[in-house]
């Protein structure tokens, strides 16, 4: 081995702790990129293959009752490749051993064979026999959560009649990768599932013989989705069509897409932050490491090594650290993406989910990681090789200290001389102090930006489940009723308070922009379901006009005072121009809101109710649920109090893991910066610090000079990190918001405090680790060393 290469290996071994600190920071950046992009690649490739193989439809529509003959007309629409009509209904189930009612979406299977679109995948057992009306298949997650297997039976209310159904098999479907009951946002596999039933049996149960109420289409390549939707809407309008939607309006697809968009945003926003921070660190640390090699660089020049050869030597050294960091980051990132994929497998029902390594992420992260170290090294080497060999072999000129305002400050504050040493050292090398300060600030900012997502989630949950929806239960009615139904609801066991709810599908359009949403009616004194203004306070419903969530208003490009075209997709199926009266805040989902009186005046009907919001006394729970299960008018139940409990538990569980993971990242960066800064300080000032010991200063007093400077810089870095962190949080919020979830930009005091605490403590520990080396310095030999 060449002598220079031997030097390289031994040097790397000598500075292993510092190299490791740099490599770890670099590894963080690389790992986040590999993690986010790898998970996204896995999800999208798996989804695309699944969609393709099981023929996931492109357009979905429902109606009240459309004659079977309409199928041919739909098939003739230009651009339609395949049509699948079916019956789809929301039903209430009475599960053994479960007090509360469960819900399911029942979809029919064709009279013969498997459907041509949204083909379910049999995971266990078989499809139901079309000739046996009591046979059904269940979605696998629901069956698992309720411990149901092929051959087991359960009870469901179909078309107002309680029926005993037998399970023949467990299925998965590309249509129900993410399964949630309408109105909620979190999957609850125990209380909501999918039931597949033969077409004839379903038609008989819901009185839909010779008719369908749901249709899915697959389009030819290059067909216009909008044109097909418009044509389909025209065909279905007379039969109670409520507006066809493309894949982006299909619940499971929209959620999955939202999740993948978020991952893509994470892959775009976070890794550059980490990589920039690590490039920065590597730059600083390598720069200083190389600066310490000043005499050896001078020697190599003196004995005739060319500038290029010396530069290459140090580039190889940095590349060694860089390659180490990249490999570590790859390994950890890929491992984490496996864990993350496993986590997704809990929420998303894929037939298989195998982590796919993302070549792009590996290549880009390696290129960026190596570039970070090499740029850092190049700058430092360039500075060193510019010196003439004679100059380089001399120790650097002693620094010029000048008396200035700091001294007057010191005198005024009566600072001890050791404190003055700290102050002067910072002021004498402001650039170096700034690098340490910014490095520490970067750790604080990464933590603030990471913890911010919990703050945002807190606000989202609080708004959606505590401020907006304050009811215990929402009873969803099979069809709209008069307001007298409220009296019936009040008579249910244990019910204390009832409130009318009404929602109807509408298409909002402003110029070329349009969106399909539900329009919800609110009474003037509604307490259970409220609408929040942009500062999070409940708003009083204006007598006229629409309230729109800010994200929806931005999407449609309308401001308060402007007119919006509102097309009712349910009777009376009219179109009105209605002004937007205010913009509101809605983190989960998007709905337009309007005063009940104004809405029904517009619809020219007496006020109606299609959902009832209820609070109840917990003692009568079992009786209430029993009545709900046997009331045919109720087609669905949303159990808000259960949802709240479940959500809070789930978040607390996840919170702990996530806080741990992010803290590790923040600690790594801080240690990377502080440990290296302190080590370099120590080696540069060993002589000075040993002199202090000779003069009779105690170890603690000398240690104070070393640790004090680092801690002064760390404390100064905290507020800078808060500001940077807020900016990163703003970037992240923008990236994480999807159509279904809008992430508010709120950073809590707790987040600022936790970030500061983690960073200050890890800085202190790192500085103290270096201080221990100070104790081991041999005073005599340190003094003998040439200056």
């Amino acid at each position, binding site marked *: 081995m060449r*002598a220079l290469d*031997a*030097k390289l290996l*031994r040097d790397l071994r000598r500075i292993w702790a510092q190299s490791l600190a740099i490599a770890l920071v670099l590894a963080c950046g690389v790992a986040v990129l590999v993690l986010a992009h790898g998970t996204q690649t896995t999800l999208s490739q798996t989804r695309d293959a699944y969609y393709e193989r099981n023929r996931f439809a492109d357009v979905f529509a429902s109606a009240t009752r459309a004659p079977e003959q309409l199928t041919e007309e739909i098939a003739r629409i230009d651009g339609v490749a395949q049509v699948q009509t079916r019956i789809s209904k929301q039903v209430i189930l009475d599960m053994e051993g479960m007090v509360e009612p469960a819900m399911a979406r029942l979809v029919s299977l064709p009279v013969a064979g498997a459907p041509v679109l949204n083909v379910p995948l049999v995971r266990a057992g078989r499809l139901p026999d079309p000739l046996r009306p009591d046979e059904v298949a269940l979605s696998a997650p629901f069956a698992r959560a309720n411990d149901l297997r092929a051959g087991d039976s359960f009870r469901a209310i179909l078309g107002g009649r309680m029926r005993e159904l037998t399970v023949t098999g467990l299925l998965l479907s590309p249509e129900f990768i993410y399964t949630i009951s309408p109105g909620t946002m979190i999957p609850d596999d125990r209380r909501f599932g999918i039931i597949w039933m033969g077409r004839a049996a379903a038609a008989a149960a819901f009185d839909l013989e010779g008719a369908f109420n749901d249709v899915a289409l697959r389009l030819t390549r290059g067909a216009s989705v909008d044109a097909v939707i418009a044509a389909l809407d025209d065909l279905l309008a007379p039969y109670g069509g409520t507006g066809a939607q493309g894949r982006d309006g299909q619940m499971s697809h929209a959620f999955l897409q939202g999740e993948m968009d978020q991952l893509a945003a994470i892959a775009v926003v976070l890794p550059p932050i980490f990589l920039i921070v690590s490039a920065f660190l590597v730059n600083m640390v390598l720069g200083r490491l190389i600066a310490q090699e000043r*005499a050896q660089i001078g020697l190599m020049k003196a*004995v*005739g090594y060319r*500038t290029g050869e010396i530069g290459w030597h140090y580039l190889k050294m940095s590349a060694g650290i860089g390659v180490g960091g990249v490999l570590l980051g790859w390994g950890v990132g890929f491992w984490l993406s496996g864990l993350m994929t496993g986590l997704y497998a809990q929420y998303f029902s894929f037939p298989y989910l195998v982590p796919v390594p993302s070549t792009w992420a590996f290549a880009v992260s390696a290129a960026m990681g190596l570039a970070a170290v090499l740029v850092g090294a190049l700058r430092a080497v360039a500075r060193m090789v510019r010196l003439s060999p*004679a100059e380089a072999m001399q120790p650097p000129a002693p620094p010029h200290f000048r008396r200035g305002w700091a001294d007057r400050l010191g005198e005024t504050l009566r600072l001890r001389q050791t404190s003055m040493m700290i102050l002067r050292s910072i002021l004498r090398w402001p650039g170096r102090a700034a690098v340490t300060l910014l490095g520490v600030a970067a750790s604080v900012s990464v933590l603030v930006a990471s913890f911010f997502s919990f703050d945002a989630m807190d606000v989202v949950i609080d708004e959606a489940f505590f401020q907006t929806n304050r009811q215990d239960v929402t009873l969803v009615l099979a069809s709209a009723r008069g307001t007298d139904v409220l009296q019936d609801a009040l008579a249910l066991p244990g019910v204390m308070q009832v409130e009318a709810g009404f929602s109807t599908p509408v298409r909002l359009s402003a110029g070329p922009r349009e969106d399909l949403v539900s329009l919800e009616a609110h009474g003037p004194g509604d307490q259970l379901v409220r609408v929040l203004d942009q500062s999070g306070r409940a708003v009083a419903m204006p007598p006229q006009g629409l309230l729109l969530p800010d994200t929806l208003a931005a999407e449609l490009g309308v401001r308060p005072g402007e007119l919006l075209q509102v097309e009712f997709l349910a009777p009376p199926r009219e179109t009105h121009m209605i002004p937007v009266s205010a913009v509101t805040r809605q983190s989960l989902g998007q709905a337009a809101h309007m005063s009940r009186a104004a809405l029904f005046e517009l619809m020219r009907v007496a006020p109606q109710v299609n959902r009832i919001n209820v609070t109840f006394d917990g003692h009568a729970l079992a009786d209430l649920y029993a009545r709900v299960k046997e009331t045919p008018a109720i087609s669905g139940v949303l159990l808000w109090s259960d949802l709240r409990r479940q959500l809070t538990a789930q978040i607390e569980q996840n919170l702990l893991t996530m806080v741990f993971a992010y803290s590790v990242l923040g600690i790594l960066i801080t240690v990377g910066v502080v440990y290296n800064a302190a080590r370099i300080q120590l080696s540069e000032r060993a002589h000075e610090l040993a002199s202090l010991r000779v003069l009779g200063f105690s170890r603690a007093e000398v240690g104070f000079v070393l640790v004090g400077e680092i801690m002064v810089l760390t404390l100064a870095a905290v507020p800078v990190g808060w500001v940077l962190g807020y900016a990163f949080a703003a970037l992240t919020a923008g990236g994480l918001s999807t159509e279904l979830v809008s992430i508010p930009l709120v950073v809590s005091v707790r987040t600022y405090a936790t970030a500061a605490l983690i960073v200050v403590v890890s800085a202190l520990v790192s500085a103290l680790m270096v201080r221990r080396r100070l104790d081991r310095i041999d005073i005599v030999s340190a003094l003998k060393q040439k200056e």
Partner: protein
Amino acid sequence: MSQTEDSGKPVYRAVGLTKVYGSGAAEVHALRGVDLELFEGERVVLLGASGSGKSTLLNILGALDTPTAGQVFFRDRELTKLSDRALTAFRRDHVGFVFQFYNLVPSLTARENVALVTEIARAPMRPEEALERVGLSARLDHFPAQMSGGEQQRVAIARAIAKRPDVLLCDEPTGALDSKTGVQVLEVLVSVNEDLGTTTALITHNMATRKIAHRVIHLADGLVAKVERNDAPVPPAQVSW
């Protein structure tokens, strides 16, 4: 061997060398117009007080530094006209350095420190041979920290001579050593000069050391104060410190 300006060709010729460090009030004139010649195979001692410009002169001769004004010729080449790249090549091919503080690479063994130079030299000795010449055959695989000051300086000399340089420039090679070790180091330098015929220039501020030289050049305040010829140099062992 006892070559002098009468018998030899000059290896180095310096004309009007000036070196100014810093500027304005902090300006320091290290050299103020030095004229000087060094001859093939001779052994020269540069004497002078601290700050007299000895090290600056030696650094300029060795192409470690460039003068502010004046010319330096090595044989027929004018060093002061060469590019940085050509100066590097000049050092690599012609000059061996020995420094007061040895300047060994701490992470390399004695053998590897010498190999550092032999790997880039044109017709070097083997590192083992160079180390044998300085009496360190038994310390080949020791790291600098495992050796005494005298041993480290001998490694530095081995490193300097291993490339068979035309000139050996030594800046206070005994400055950090006790007298006994210092004598050993001087003996090695003298034997290299005599056996290999390497022109050797040696800085010292120890007056006694001048007795080992063929010529002694006295520097004071950045100028050559006087040049003494010594027709009967004595072996280092007889120099009393």
